[in-house]
């Protein structure tokens, strides 16, 4: 409980910093007509290696709070470029969350996003995640690049949103995001499931 309280103070302090950064105080939550989780992600695309990934949640007073992290996506700002462009704009569902994922190139703590048609109305971006570079057991194997957080270059991706692992002076953003999702308005579930409207990309 104390841990939770402390963590909440940390969150509030970080939210304060965020508010200063984005120039906003708070916002009233507009409740959608669907049964949704109180929390969701927002990814504000700025550059491929330095964009903002927000975790946003509404409280019992209908106030909206947020915390944000550095995130990267793609190597190009063309959202319709398969395997190269950053994540297309719009709303995404979440198709699952795993703690020890062991995919072909993606491992550890991962949030699977719905596939998404880009704005040309044709090209479908697929197999997208929010993830970092770590082993399936959430550690580091620096003999294998996809499991080692080397530095700022790791924010580049083929289209996924990537966040940092605590190595080489980078913060434990994947750990914090993971905690926020499970304990602050997301879901405690693991595995394959669908949560609607879990990411908005601007």
């Amino acid at each position, binding site marked *: 409980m104390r841990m939770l309280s402390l963590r909440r103070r940390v969150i509030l302090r970080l939210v304060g910093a965020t508010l200063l950064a984005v120039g906003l105080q708070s916002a009233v939550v507009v409740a959608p007509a669907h049964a949704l989780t109180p929390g969701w992600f927002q990814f504000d695309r700025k550059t491929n290696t330095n964009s903002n990934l927000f975790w946003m949640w509404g409280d019992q007073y209908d106030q909206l709070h947020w915390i944000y992290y550095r995130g990267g996506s793609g190597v190009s700002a063309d959202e319709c470029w398969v395997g190269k462009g950053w994540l297309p704009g719009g709303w995404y569902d979440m198709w699952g969350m795993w703690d020890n994922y062991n995919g072909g190139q993606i491992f550890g703590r991962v949030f699977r996003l719905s596939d998404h048609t880009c704005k040309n109305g*044709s090209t479908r971006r697929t197999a997208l995640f929010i993830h970092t570079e770590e082993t399936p057991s959430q550690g580091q194997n620096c003999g294998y690049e996809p499991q080692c957080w080397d530095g700022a270059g790791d924010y580049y*991706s083929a289209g996924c949103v990537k966040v940092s692992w605590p190595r080489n002076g980078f913060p434990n953003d994947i750990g914090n995001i993971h905690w926020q999702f499970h304990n602050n308005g997301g879901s405690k579930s693991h595995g394959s499931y669908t949560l609607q409207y879990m990411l908005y990309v601007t």
Partner: protein
Amino acid sequence: MRIRHPICAFALVVTAAACGHTSGPSLRAAVGATSDGSGSLPDNAALVADSSLVVGSQTYRLGATAGAPLTGSLVPLAVPSPSGDRYLYNSWAQGADEQCTGDPSQRGNCKEPARDAIIGRPTLRVFTPSSGQDVVVEPGAVSAAWRPDGAVAYFKGNATDVPADTSRFVGHLYVRDSLDAAAARWTTDAARYIAVGWAGSTLIAYRQSDGERFDVLAVSGPGAMRTVASDATVVAVSPDGTKVLVNHDRDGTSTASVVPVSGGAPLGTIDLGKTTDPQSGSPLAWITYGGSWDGDLVAAESALGVALFRVSSGRISFDRVLAAKGSDYSMGIHEPQLFRDKSGKQRLIAWAPVSAPSKSGRASAILTCDVGAKSCARNGTRNERSVGLARANGHGRAR
């Protein structure tokens, strides 16, 4: 293999051929092209844009709307036959998609289809310009490779329709000895494969993994599959079909390697992060898929624009940037294809998005270059959803 014109023999391994098209249902104006007379292309170049096929100065109406939402420009949107008289192309019938009501930025207003909802049906079709005939080759199929001896390879899903969760659209690679022959399955495990092209009698293909990343495969027959490179893409296959230039991305840069199709260690490697363009003083940073290979020259899209490389005895070296992205083509210059015009002059064609995408598509500039003169010009602008070059992807001789 019968070749009607000498120029076609070269075009077989370089780019789309426009040989002998003297009749057929050509349109008076290029559909979707700007009205500045820019609809036509150089001889021996071809592109597909939605329901139009443009071959040199001729524009034809396809029987269906071309499109490959699942592959983009990873592989050709259309592939000419060895004799250049027919075109295999990917078509797409759209099903369910995101539906928005009210303010699309408001949570709850834009609904994604359920994971198992049908978002579309891909179909491989063949179009014959001389007759206007357009027929279905295979429903549920995506990506085609046409071998010089007439054999055709493609990926076909276990189901015909694609669910919203496209990772569930798994199937196999199939090969037909000719377009009309029975299909033989060449893969044993169902996965999301993509046919890239032929290197002699070996089919080069992708197997897609999470995060839009790919393994490069060499498939030499039913059940005979080998991984050429993991987490990589194919820049180009050598004209003789013995080598493939594969690219591996890492931390915003890439490394490209010339790899023997028969197996073995890379013959040559270039680190694009450490390769600087002397004109701009900037590193090339990376190259990517959709390039071409003519003689000892390779054209590839890089972070700076279209870059040329020399490959000699497997060793690869940077030559120059032929077409710089600059501010005009900041979103990239895709599918740079080397080809020879009727006079034998080496040329290049590519396309570049020049506007932000919208629901009706986007504007894409068509660039053509005179390689020897080191000059490029904007040939015209297309305004469709799906634009892609028709490019031959059969290299070398089948054994």
